[in-house]
């Protein structure tokens, strides 16, 4: 995997971390999707959001990304509530490919960050190589395989030079080889200083990638702990049951 050495603009001061949820709730009508979440996500190793289906992981990703607003409570990015979101990026479980080539998809994301036009072709190539798609630059993005599309979505997200990269179950529908390729990119990205906040229901993946774990059940934050501590001695019965493979309802 090519390295992720990044350009000058990567050294901009951190502005979005810590990411803090202050008693934040999200409701849709009578349904509470997230229930008074208080949580601080600091720079460092990847934060993995885990929990059974319907626990609110994806909603927490969207809230943290600023795609939705809290019904009550608030979200603070680096201590401020203003949401310019310039240095946040997200990869969805099923990313939508623009009807263009792989290279044009990355170029589009670069342009959205007002990257210098002259530097763009080189940067596009660099990003595509970094995710192992250098040879597929001219291929229509929608004709790539699921794993390739997911890697392209990562390249597109990285083109935005994020300080925080949200990933919403990015490997949920991928085969093991594609999953490994995506995980490798996530590791290299995290090592380059990008904060990864990733939702997954795959415990093995959480063990492989997590620096800390946020465990959610039915929209409630049940436990937030360092990965080692969480996996070896969970503090709550729900987390223990989830790790045993029991159904947590």
């Amino acid at each position, binding site marked *: 995997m090519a390295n992720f050495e990044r350009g000058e603009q990567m050294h901009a001061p951190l502005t979005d971390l810590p990411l803090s949820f202050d008693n934040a709730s999200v409701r849709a009508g009578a349904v509470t999707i997230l229930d008074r979440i208080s949580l601080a996500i600091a720079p460092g190793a990847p934060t993995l959001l885990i929990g059974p289906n319907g626990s609110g992981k994806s909603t927490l990703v969207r809230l943290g*990304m600023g795609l939705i607003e809290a019904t009550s409570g608030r979200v603070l990015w680096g201590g401020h509530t203003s949401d310019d*979101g310039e240095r946040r990026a997200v990869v969805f479980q099923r990313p*939508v490919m*623009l009807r*263009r080539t792989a290279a044009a998809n990355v170029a589009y994301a670069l342009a*959205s960050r007002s990257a210098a036009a002259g530097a763009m072709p080189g940067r596009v190539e660099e990003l595509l190589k970094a995710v192992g798609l250098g040879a597929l630059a001219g291929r*229509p993005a*929608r004709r790539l395989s699921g794993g390739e599309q997911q890697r392209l979505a990562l390249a597109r997200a990285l083109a*935005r030079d994020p300080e925080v990269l949200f990933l919403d179950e990015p490997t949920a529908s991928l085969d093991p080889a594609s999953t490994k390729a995506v995980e490798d990119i996530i590791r290299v990205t995290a090592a380059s200083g990008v904060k990864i906040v990733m939702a997954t229901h795959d415990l093995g993946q959480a063990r492989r990638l997590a620096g800390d774990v946020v465990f959610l059940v039915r929209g409630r934050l049940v436990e937030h702990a360092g990965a080692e501590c969480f996996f070896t001695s969970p503090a709550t019965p729900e987390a223990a049951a989830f790790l045993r493979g029991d159904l947590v309802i």
Partner: protein
Amino acid sequence: MTEGVSALELVLGGDANLYSIVWLSLYVSLCAVALAALVGFPLGALVALVRFPGRSFLVVVLNAFMGLPPVVVGLAVFLLLSRSGPLGSFGILFTPRAMIFAQALLVLPIIAALARLTIEELWSEYRDELTAMRIGPAGRVTTLLWDARFSLVTTLLAGFGRAAAEVGTVMIVGGNIDGFTRTMTTAIALETSKGDLPLAMGLGLVLITLVILVNAFAWGVRRYGELRAG
């Protein structure tokens, strides 16, 4: 049968009168579609993306106006452009420019309404990604129009079909002046009534061939686009 043979002779023999009518018809219809697309695509995209008071009413009006009676549009444009009308000072009544203007008005609702449908569908797919990339309203419109470009070719075709086939509007605002504002459809109507069936049939033949060729070209463009851009 003899009229059919004469019609073919006119077409294959490159009859100057016939082909001057064909070129004018093409010129008027293509200009009208281009003009309508220039307004209709952004209008359709805006209606698809922006929520504003009266939007639903506008959607209903656009949909309803897809079936505007050409003679009514012709009459309205005639009143606008006639010497005593608000745009009478332009002095373009009974000219190809008046015909382009009238046909563009006729085609505009078709292009805007179909573009709205296409863009709205694409927006529901792209919303999360474009929002996450912080793309502003103008960027969204241009992105969606560009990415829907191959679907929008069909919209252009619908507009062209409407423009190329209509008689009433161009008859009223163009006046069907020989060698100046006579189009294929108005000429077919006139020559049939005069009993000059070979010319009418020849023009009909050319009209149908042109419509098939334009559709084939558009299909080719769309197919090529799908292969190239996915």
